[in-house]
């Protein structure tokens, strides 16, 4: 593979270490002065930081036996699949979040987003109809919305609603459950209800301190024009959300291998057990919201309402989302948010399932 060649002029890549520590101002100055001394040395080794892992990877692949076990190759297929599949949505998400950072000013938000949470939460939920993507894209967008001054309750409602009720997901659900149109309706109602309930809860709670701002400690660079700040934000968000996405893919691929199918087979009898198992599977498997309907449709031995739980829980909370929430909004937020969302989503799905399915 030709990926070993890096297209950056060599002396552009610097070992990050010395520069990341921009703590105290005078320290930094000192660092910088010092840099001129041994800067040449650092520059020479810089490219190795990125190239070395690839060289090692290429060397390892000839030691085939070590990496050739069927399970390990399956694991790596799953890991790479989840990562690549999310990439288009992630890129779409960070492009939108870059646009928000450039074009959506706090004044604009003040003008258009309803002041009262009673109005803001439902409209944010319905705004989710407009984002054709999956959950990976909506996390950085919600982060930027908060930074642009959107009330967190509304941004979080959007975060939960968008990946579940957008047209792409609705169509794929309809395709997967052909001839069972109520499933599409049930998914729409339960997901929207879940998003709004969590949004309302957040509005009541009103604890702003729990959300870490994405731009905290980040300088706003206004000097370079809109294109420049757009790329700057998009690229930062790409690595911010993308890094946590990789953490999530690692977890999801591992758990797909660890959860044996006997577990799934064992519980198809009892309704309550299967509701719980489907909620757990949705969290552990971390399947993209555009694909989960097909997975659920492939398990016809379970009741419709337990499969609805899978479809409602999956887009709002799963392993990779917990990692992404923690990255974008802070660890404390993720710890509080995840169990609430899980509980509300299961509740909404069960209630809607009882009524409709």
């Amino acid at each position, binding site marked *: 593979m030709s990926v070993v060649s890096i297209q950056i002029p060599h002396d552009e890549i610097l070992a990050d270490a010395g520069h990341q520590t921009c703590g105290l101002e005078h320290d930094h100055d000192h660092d910088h002065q010092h840099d001129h001394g041994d800067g040449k040395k650092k520059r020479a080794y810089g490219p190795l930081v990125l190239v070395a892992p*690839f060289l090692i990877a290429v060397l390892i*692949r000839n030691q085939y036996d070590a990496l050739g076990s*069927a399970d390990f190759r399956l694991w790596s*297929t799953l890991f790479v699949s989840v990562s690549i599949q999310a990439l*288009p949505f992630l890129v779409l998400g960070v492009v939108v979040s870059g646009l928000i950072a450039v074009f959506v000013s706090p004044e604009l938000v003040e003008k258009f987003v309803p002041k009262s949470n009673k109005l803001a939460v439902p409209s944010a939920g319905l705004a989710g109809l407009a984002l054709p993507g999956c959950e990976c894209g909506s996390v950085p967008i919600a982060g930027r919305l908060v930074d642009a001054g959107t009330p967190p309750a509304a941004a979080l409602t959007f975060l939960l609603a968008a990946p579940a009720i957008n047209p792409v997901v609705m169509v794929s659900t309809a395709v997967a459950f052909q001839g069972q149109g109520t499933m599409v309706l049930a998914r729409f109602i339960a997901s929207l209800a879940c998003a709004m309930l969590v949004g309302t809860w957040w509005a009541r709670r009103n604890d702003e301190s729990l959300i870490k701002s994405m731009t905290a400690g980040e300088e706003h*660079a206004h000097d370079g024009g809109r294109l420049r700040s757009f790329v700057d934000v998009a690229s930062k968000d*790409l690595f911010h959300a993308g890094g946590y996405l990789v953490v999530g893919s690692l977890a999801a691929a591992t758990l797909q291998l660890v959860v044996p199918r006997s577990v799934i087979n064992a519980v198809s009898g009892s309704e309550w057990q299967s509701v719980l198992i489907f909620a757990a599977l949705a969290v552990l498997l971390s399947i993209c919201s555009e694909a989960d309907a097909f997975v659920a449709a492939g398990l016809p031995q379970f009741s419709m309402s337990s499969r609805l739980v899978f479809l409602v829980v999956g887009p709002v909370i799963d392993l990779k989302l917990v990692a992404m929430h923690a990255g974008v909004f802070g660890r404390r937020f993720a710890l509080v948010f995840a169990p609430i969302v899980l509980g509300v989503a299961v509740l909404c799905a069960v209630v809607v399932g009882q009524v409709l399915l």
Partner: protein
Amino acid sequence: MNRVGRAAVMLTLGFTMARLLWTGAFGWFIQQRMQIPLLIATVVLLIMGVYEAVQATEEETKDPESRTRSTAPKVGWLMILPLLVIVSVQPVGLGAAAADRVENFTPVETESRFDELDFSQGVPELRVLDFVDRAIWDDDGSLNGQTVRLEGLVVNDPDVPDGFLLTRFLVSCCAADGVPIQVAIQGVSENLVNDTWVVADVVLIEPDVPYRENDADRWFVNAELQSLTIDLTPPTDAYESPYE
């Protein structure tokens, strides 16, 4: 992660994706219809990578301290991990190891009726999904007594002692959501290794009880083998999906 690091990873990522798209190897990981979205994402990544690299060079000459101003969290470096796995393990598509773990796909009943099969041009080729679907749901018995051609990979199974499970994966988005569709091929004399791609001409074995009324834990649509060829050009190479 400063601008230079981000530019480098974006370009590496972009070139790796471009290569997967070019060779068609992306088809092992994601559905074919994801090709266009992935292509667009790749182009955006490459453009952003070049732009950031140029910006970094300009910044450096104007103001050597500027690199510390725009930093993304270090966790972003993890984005090279999938690339490292692609390069080192060279993962291939789903096979016997995956089929072992996931419950078989059983098509649900649909309203639409089945088209007539065309036997005038020789043995017709059917998707494995289509074969299983017809075997379970076609009341007109369009498969009964007819030879049809299936393509898939071999999965050996103790429940099929003198044959194998001809397997194809149904993938809706990416390989992680793949579910196997399997037909138990009976009357096979050769011993085939797992994951061999084969083209098999088969005739459906009609069950005593209709498949749809079968409530056993684990059951398969069965077919009698007529002739078998090892597939020398399996659909795992460029531009043909290994998945259904």
